[in-house]
């Protein structure tokens, strides 16, 4: 790597050529404050908070977009820089609805932290008129309050640049600029896929998930209800972050312990229905391979991806696996099989899923997600990792101090295959482990399908299973999905089986996951840190294949019959809508 020498605050550093000043400063152990900057997603130099003095330059330079040059002399903390940052924050505050004490982002707000760090003492120094911000609560998953919006455009960049969707944009001009959709239409009227990446991009409280925790509390406190919760594969890898634990620490045992203390009647592991999904999906895949129909098969675990497909690639809806997502399979099994087994009336069951995803809030009310029928949904409430974290905080549980506990039976067993569902490529690998052994009729020697692992945007591989060649592709992030599907459409890429996750990196980076600041995202690889937990868990397990999960086997024996049976279709499968744009 070519290196250049720069001077930062009088000290010399060797930094890679082409680095931005902000990266060079990080090497010098200096964090330059930012608001609009989101590494690799939004680098537009708009908020002007990261301004630094550069010797010889006319004005102050934006550290987030200015590349270093050899011999550059940078000053990050002069009186002029300090004054500029403070005035900048004061001006932003003059347009920001400052209900900080009751704000959902209090404590995790980047603006709040900067005001404290940079010594803002008078939040009303530049008080003046403001335009009334758009409010939007039209969707199942999102609340937008533009009175808090600071126009950093991180959400716009997440939607447009990162996800390739662009249902939100900067509208109007100048002081009247707002973030919203065409003609101020509510988001529900657009082709938004509910991925929630805008929320995790937002530095302040202008965007947040619709909070369903009150409804869950009400259910828990209602003695007539049986309230159960299952947790998605990835949230054990992230929920610790809600309590200040650094990213990349597995807290599954503490999570279970906390949930049991919240008063749920059952705390279960969604890894089990991940395995169930594999049983159904691998069967479906082998069936389609045999018939040569509706190939490539495309996975259906990610409801954001499903909505994306329905809007933007309706011609591919026949290719979607008809399998419900693991969340929905769980709720469906609980309210049919388990209710019958325990003698519970499905109408008295409140089934909650804890998920890394905002699209699942949309999914729970989709048509075709009610195995019992009669207006009883498979899943009543889907709450994000963040909401679950808030419930635990509200209950006063000292999360870090908890001792590990185990999931409740009979839904306590998940395989390593189910565990890796939370990372991009995980569903594909899990399916391949099962499909391969079914096709080959023997045990695989090596269970790792390395080619589909990792956070590359698009991964392809061909596996020879006996006489059969299986061509697979994996994409995460809808922008990459678009690229992949266009290649399939044009015939450029021939493929039999595709895994798509709406969020880049898969569920570990979902729109419902704990919000990390732009600074954290710039300094660590969040996706890699979080997904390593899932792969490590898999590696340590005895049970690493879905079809060897005895709990799953029991479900088939006692209730479903065969994978792909009539009952399985009634309970575990669904259908799609061609929405178009």
């Amino acid at each position: 790597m070519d290196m250049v020498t720069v001077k930062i605050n009088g000290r010399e550093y060797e930094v890679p050529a082409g680095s931005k000043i902000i990266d060079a400063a990080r090497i010098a152990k200096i964090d330059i404050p930012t608001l609009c900057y989101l590494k690799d997603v939004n680098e537009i130099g708009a908020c002007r908070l990261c301004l630094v003095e550069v010797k010889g330059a006319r004005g102050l330079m934006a550290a987030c977009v200015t590349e270093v040059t050899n011999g550059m002399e940078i000053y990050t903390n002069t009186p002029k820089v300090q004054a500029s940052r403070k005035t900048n924050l004061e001006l932003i505050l003059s347009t920001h609805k400052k209900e900080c004490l009751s704000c959902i982002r209090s404590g995790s707000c980047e603006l709040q932290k900067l005001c404290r760090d940079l010594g803002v003492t008078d939040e009303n120094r530049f008080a003046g008129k403001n335009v009334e911000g758009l409010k939007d609560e039209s969707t199942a998953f999102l609340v937008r309050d533009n009175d808090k919006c600071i126009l950093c455009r991180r959400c716009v960049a997440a939607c447009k640049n990162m996800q390739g969707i662009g249902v939100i944009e900067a509208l109007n001009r100048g002081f009247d600029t707002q973030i919203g959709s065409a003609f101020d239409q509510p988001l529900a009227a657009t082709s938004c896929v509910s991925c929630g990446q805008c929320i995790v991009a937002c530095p302040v409280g202008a965007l947040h998930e619709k909070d369903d925790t009150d409804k869950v509390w009400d259910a828990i406190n209602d003695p007539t209800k049986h309230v159960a919760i299952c947790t998605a594969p990835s949230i054990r890898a992230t929920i610790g972050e809600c309590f200040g634990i650094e990213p990349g620490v597995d807290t599954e045992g503490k999570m279970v312990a906390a949930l049991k203390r919240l008063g749920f009647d059952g705390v279960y592991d969604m890894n089990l229905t991940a395995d169930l999904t594999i049983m159904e999906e691998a069967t479906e895949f082998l069936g389609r391979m045999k018939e040569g129909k509706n190939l490539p098969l495309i996975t259906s675990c990610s409801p954001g991806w499903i909505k994306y497909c329905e809007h933007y690639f309706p011609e591919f809806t026949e290719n979607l696996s008809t399998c419900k997502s693991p969340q929905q399979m769980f709720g469906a099994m609980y309210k049919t099989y388990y209710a019958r087994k325990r003698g519970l009336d499905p109408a008295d069951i409140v089934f909650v899923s804890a998920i890394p995803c905002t699209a699942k809030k949309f999914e729970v009310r989709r048509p075709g997600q009610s195995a019992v029928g009669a207006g009883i949904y498979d899943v009543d409430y889907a709450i994000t990792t963040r909401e679950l974290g808030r419930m635990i905080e509200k209950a006063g549980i000292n999360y870090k101090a908890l001792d590990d506990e185990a999931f409740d039976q009979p839904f306590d067993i998940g395989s390593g295959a189910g565990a890796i569902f939370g990372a991009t490529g995980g569903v594909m690998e899990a399916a391949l482990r099962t499909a391969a052994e079914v096709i080959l009729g023997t045990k695989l020697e090596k269970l790792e399908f390395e080619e589909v692992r990792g956070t590359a945007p698009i991964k392809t591989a061909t596996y020879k299973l006996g006489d059969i060649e299986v061509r697979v592709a994996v994409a995460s992030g809808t922008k990459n999905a678009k690229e992949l599907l266009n290649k399939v459409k044009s015939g450029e890429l021939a493929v039999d089986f595709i895994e798509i996750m709406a969020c880049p990196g898969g569920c570990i980076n979902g729109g419902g996951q704990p919000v990390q600041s732009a600074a954290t995202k710039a300094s660590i690889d969040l996706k890699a840190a979080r997904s390593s937990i899932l792969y490590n868990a898999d590696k340590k397990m005895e049970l690493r294949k879905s079809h060897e999960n005895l709990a799953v086997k029991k479900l088939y024996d006692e209730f479903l019959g065969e994978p792909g049976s009539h009952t399985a279709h009634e309970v575990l499968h669904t259908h799609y809508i061609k929405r178009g744009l």
Partner: protein
Amino acid sequence: MITNIEQLIARRDQYAPTVAMRHGHGHFVDAGDGIRKNVLICGGTGCTSSNSMTVRDALVAELRLAGIEDEIKVVTTGCFGLCALGPIMIVYPEGTFYSKVKPEDMKEIVTEHLVKGNPVRHLLYRETVKGDDILALDQTPFYAKQKRVALRNCGVIDPECINEYIAMDGYQALAKAITTMTPKEVIKTVLDSGIRGRGGAGFPTGRKWSFAEAQPAGKKYVVCNADEGDPGAFMDRSVLEGDPHAVLEAMAIAGYAIGADEGYIYVRAEYPIAVNRLEIAIKQAEEEGVLGNNIFGTGFNFKITLRLGAGAFVCGEETALLTSIEGNRGEPRPRPPFPAVKGLFGKPTIINNVETLANIAQIILNGPEWFASMGTERSKGTKVFALGGKITNTGLVEVPMGTTLREVVEEIGGGVPNGKKFKAAQTGGPSGGCIPADLIDTPIDYDNLTAIGSMMGSGGLIVMDEDDCMVDIAKFFLEFTVDESCGKCVPCRVGTMRLLETLEKITDGNGTMEDIAKLEELSEYIKSASLCALGQTAPNPVLSTLRFFRDEYIAHVVDKTCPAHACKNLMKYKIIADKCKGCTACARKCPVGAITGAIRAPHTIDTEKCIKCGVCISTCKFGAIVKD
């Protein structure tokens, strides 16, 4: 079709006699086509707005009636500069200058002047009538002090006829550059001329070109910034309307110099005539082969595409202009990377303003020394100014750099009308500042203007008299900036609004001395922190008026008065008892019943009720009501 230099020269020689009699005055040239006189009528925006095209039609009809339509050539030209006198008409070879002509005047002009040879004195521009003598256009004070380089063909040739441009040595510079000079020689010539960008900041044009030239070969672009947005500046429009080929030729030269084969002109949609003339010019240039492939048989290719702006001042900023051409919201991008490295569609790009380009062909033809001989040490050549506001000769003037403001305002511009006193001149539009009366002898060039807190900008020059309140003027420009801020960066989007609010507070009579300090602090912050030049220069009107007219601010804040009586909320109407005859006319007209008094006794105004509508002042026949 012109495929080589010989053909270009032949074409020039063929058409030169056609335009020859329009040079200077009194030189009849027989082109062998039976034409005795040329009548030039301005077809620029100013004159067409006052119906010059109807005048032209009436003229043509009268010529036909008189049976002399084959002897008199009627030419629709671009702007002559004296926009306030439109419609304007010049008769050559004598150079007589008719102003404010009407269709019904044509009969007299045709029968008396064009048939009998006697100029119609009462229709002539009054400055040209000196006793028995009639001065030609170029002998008037307005023109005599000017030096027309960029505007040399404006008001002289028919902009819709490429042959008239060729007759004036058009496309000779392009031919010279691409057949006898290397790209580096072209750039050196431009560098040596010392020409700096006419659009705003005054960056040396040759350096811009050499940066782009130094980029690896491949796709590059030449962009002409014709998004003239400074209110009160219209020189670029006049060049495009009057001499569009000069811009096309210069773009092709620039393309050759930096290794680009494609150019874009981004022009304001508010300039329909300019757009139309550019479309015609591009089509003609392509048909004649002076644009397109294999120009003059050299293998050099260059094509030009026209793109229209859509009403966003910020698009005059070069990176915003590029984002706009690319089809986006016209929001500026951070620099570096500079467009010369990463510009339009990510490719090396130079962006030059119209007036800058209008000088290029002359620099190539006459040499850099010629150009550098005009102007001051660090500002070479001439500059076009659009004179407006409280000045007698509203219009366009081109003077050598270094001409003093006094010469421009008093001699060329004819001074402030109505016996009022010159107070200040505003240059540089919303990015510039006000030059007070005691600096009127400042030679105008880039560095002098910057030193006194203004800037050249695109060359708008608005004259203010004693009735103009400088706080109100600062507020006017801030309103403009707030409206035109793109909204991307915080200092400009929020900062300028807070500046404006503070100014409003002051003009409303609610300001404090702390507000003045706040204005200064915020202004300095916006200057140093904004993303683009729009924001970085937005506080200039505030800072420069604070610098030169601080006492006016203080009067607003401390005494709660507006010395120029312009700020409505600080004004009080009062009746001078001595002058009031008690006729009751004002009391009857007052819409809010604020005036009371007995008949034939002095009246009084209840200032609490008064809404300052001014009806009473225009009603009073005795001048008894005044603003205080």
